[in-house]
């Protein structure tokens, strides 16, 4: 067997990006875990959908983006939101429905939005945001902007009508949009294979839109990053949309209400062996990054997270006047005179 070529830290990805990716992997991992803990303390209200185990997809795609690129997320959007640099306090604050939250508690866990970071919303109706991402990409095309719209969704989402309409529309108009399917093997509780006519719910449909079938390892942030770069370059060059299926796994249930008992014995363990944070920590070591640099990143993240958690706990609830603000662009809700 041929030996792997020795890789320098400044390969196509490079040390800076790798350290950034690692930090983000850890931040998301810890923030999601924290969200779960806060839920157990009854401090996170409503529902929440964690990305534990799926971090590398969010991190790889986000770190390959340029400022100005746009993310369209789902209810499982904390990871994608954090990955664009939104402060963890803002995210936790929103989950805790506090006044310091990203949307001051008006949207909640499923609708994280931070336009200043390019997070153009998290959508809770399956499939709705795929056409919306097309529209943002259309604007870029029309105005000659160079940004790419990146749209994340799950395996289950490939079976809804809006998926089909968006993919065809994007392909026909050659829009600079990248569709990212996070195939975590399940819709809510039903295995995707039981409800889908093809093995790969996204890649198996690519040819229906004249697109290349792409399946990647979603647990390896480097592989994700490289696939993202390629798709973004194609989009910016006027080459039209891409559809990328990332194989991944969520460690916890679908939402906080779900103990995930429907999963076959041993499946979780198998995936835990390919944990994206672990893989990446090894990768850093492989590239000669020192243990103490790695440790420091972890410690930094925890400090920020602990601090954010305290701030959120101390933060007030949103003022009651917020109930009727921002229904319309004038800031109010008046539907009559």
């Amino acid at each position, binding site marked *: 067997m041929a030996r792997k070529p020795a890789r320098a830290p400044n390969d196509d990805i490079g040390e800076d990006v790798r350290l950034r990716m690692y930090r983000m992997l850890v931040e998301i991992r810890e923030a999601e875990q924290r969200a779960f803990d806060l839920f157990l303390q009854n401090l996170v*209200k*409503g*529902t929440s959908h964690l990305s534990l185990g799926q971090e590398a997809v969010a991190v790889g795609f986000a770190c390959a983006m340029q400022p100005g690129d746009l993310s369209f997320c789902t209810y499982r959007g904390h990871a994608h939101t954090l990955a664009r640099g939104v402060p963890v306090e803002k995210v936790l604050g929103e989950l805790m*429905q506090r006044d310091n939250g990203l949307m*001051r*508690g*008006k*949207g*909640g*866990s*499923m*609708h994280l939005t931070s336009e200043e970071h390019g997070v153009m919303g998290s*959508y*809770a*109706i*399956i*499939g*709705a945001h795929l056409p919306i991402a097309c529209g943002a990409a259309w604007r870029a095309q029309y105005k000659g902007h160079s940004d790419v719209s990146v749209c994340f969704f799950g395996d*289950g*989402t490939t*079976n*809804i*009508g*809006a998926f089909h309409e968006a993919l065809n529309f994007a392909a026909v108009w050659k829009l600079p949009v990248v569709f990212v399917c996070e195939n975590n093997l399940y*819709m*809510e*509780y*039903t295995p995707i294979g*039981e*409800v*889908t006519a093809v093995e790969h719910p996204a890649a198996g449909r690519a040819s229906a839109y004249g697109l290349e079938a792409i399946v990647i390892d979603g647990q390896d942030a480097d592989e994700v990053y490289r696939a993202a770069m390629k798709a973004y370059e194609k989009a910016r060059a006027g080459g039209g949309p891409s559809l990328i299926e990332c194989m991944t796994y969520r460690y916890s249930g679908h939402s906080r*209400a779900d103990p995930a008992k*429907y999963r076959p014995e041993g499946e979780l363990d198998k995936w835990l062996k390919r944990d994206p944070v672990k893989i990446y920590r090894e990768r850093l070591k492989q590239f000669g990054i020192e243990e103490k640099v790695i440790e420091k990143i972890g410690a930094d993240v925890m400090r920020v997270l602990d601090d954010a958690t305290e701030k959120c706990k101390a933060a007030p*609830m*949103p003022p*009651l006047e*917020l*109930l*009727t603000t921002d*229904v319309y662009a004038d800031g109010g*809700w008046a*539907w009559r005179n």
Partner: protein
Amino acid sequence: MAELTYRDAVARGIAQEMARDPDVVFLGEDVAKAGGVFKATVGLLEQFGPLRVRDTPISEQAILGAAMGAAMTGLKPIAEIMFSDFFAVCFDYIANEFPKSRYMSNGQTKCPLVVRTGNGAGSRFGAQHSQSVENWCMMIPGLKVVAPSNPRDVIGLLAAAVRDPDPVIFLEHKSLYATKGEVPDGEIVDTLGTASIVRPGKDATILALALMVPRALAAAEKLKAEHHIDCEVIDVRSLVPLDTQTILGSLARTHRLFTVEENPRLCGWGAEIVSIAADEGFYDLDGPPVRITTPHIPLPAADILEDIALPTVDRIADRVKRSLGA
């Protein structure tokens, strides 16, 4: 008699009908193996098997379309749409197909199906998972629309819906799933189109639906205790057919009308009933008919905000009191 949750009443109601009639089949997302995301259909797969209780892809149009095709050709499907907000992704079936096919075909096409769904607010799920969409359905000619407020009605109205030859939208309230109520043993079959006077009273009529029924009742008790105002509370139960007689009859006795609606304000069922009352009961009215509603806004996620959005016991009581000049 046994105490049952509203949630368990759903499963019992479905089971009652499936056991009775092999043409009753049930489909939806995560309804079979997982027993539904609200756990309202636990045990049905085990009892009736995978041919009658089926998990579907995330394809709401396929779910409702398939239910319709099956209904047209001899089955009596029950389809679940997980959250009523998702009616918007399959609204063509609700607005254009189910309710028009019989009419357009001059009576040839039948459509005996039930669409069950989790409706309403209170779970801090935000604007796209908390809506009350009863008016989305009531406004469409050709549908029947039912919304039970208690476990007994869940079973009885569900049975009536399944046996009904027309398409019925069956709105279960998410915030009622955990509530309990006494339920008689044996088969329960109710009648669509009947409102029920859940508290007789003489000073004013309060109409409510689903989650608003317990609140209206509590408000009535409060008004009685604190202000000696004696309200009649009517659980509307069925928006279509609408039991206009019971409503107008009550108005003729009390001379004042209040509606307590969870759906947003504009064009709600309250507007419909108030308009009927203003027209046909005009000379019975001793004062303006008043709609107490959720304001006309999307719903916020934060508990503190969601709680003040929906009509509360205090708001209902206060509004009635002010109107009656007490």
